[in-house]
């Protein structure tokens, strides 16, 4: 069953999302290492949606939908911004960008989740994390 939480673009409002998702993951007995990965990716996706997507306009909302079952979690993070093209985001691990204090959110989402994709407009991120490691060919 999908659950949905809608919050304003205020970073102080985001803890309700993490609490609700963590509760679901613990009920399904996801390992703590996997939960840490999901927390980190969720934090990055929600903060990106608020700051880059909605430009911290509190009248604009961030919607998070999620579905947890015994094998995986699927999370959607949707903002009201104009969207972006993830292929144009500079690689924060390249030598010329390594000392930059920002620009690591997308990279962390991709590194810590098993699948990350965006809709064509670029204002909706969909992230999947499996409870157990699943070979890519079987996904």
């Amino acid at each position, binding site marked *: 069953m999908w659950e949905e939480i809608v919050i304003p673009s205020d*970073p*102080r409002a985001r803890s309700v999302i993490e609490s609700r998702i963590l509760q679901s993951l613990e009920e399904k007995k996801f390992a703590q*290492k996997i939960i*840490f990965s999901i*927390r*980190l990716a969720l*934090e*990055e996706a929600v*903060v990106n949606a608020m*700051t880059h997507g909605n430009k911290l306009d509190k009248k604009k909302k961030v919607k998070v939908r999620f579905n947890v079952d015994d094998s995986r979690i699927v999370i959607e993070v949707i903002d009201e911004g104009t969207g972006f093209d993830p292929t144009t985001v500079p690689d*924060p*691990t390249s030598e010329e960008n*390594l*000392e*930059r*204090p*920002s*620009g*690591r*959110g997308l*990279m*962390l989402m991709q*590194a*810590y989740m098993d699948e990350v994709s965006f809709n064509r407009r670029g204002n909706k991120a969909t992230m999947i994390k499996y409870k157990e490691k699943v070979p890519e060919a079987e996904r």
Partner: protein
Amino acid sequence: MKLNVLAKDGVVHVSVGGRVDVLESDKLVKDVEQKINADNKNVEFDFTNLEFISSDGLGALLRIRSFTKKFGGDIKIYCAPERIRDVFKTTKLDQLFTILPCKS
């Protein structure tokens, strides 16, 4: 975030625990940079009780690193839990920061 900052013998000792994220990163930078000067230009972080760090937290450390460089100082990080060390490795920031085991 639980933060304790103490300048002593040329080193700014920073114990940071809990969570360093978008809401905490500016406070971390401000409180640590206040203690950095020509006499206390090196910073040593104790991450023993650090549970979570986001990209904003990493950004805060990079801002502090840049500030220490102005005085010719550097940063060392002690006792980071495995999951935190993994974030540094994933972002390749282990190439910029000296990450060391716990002090005995």
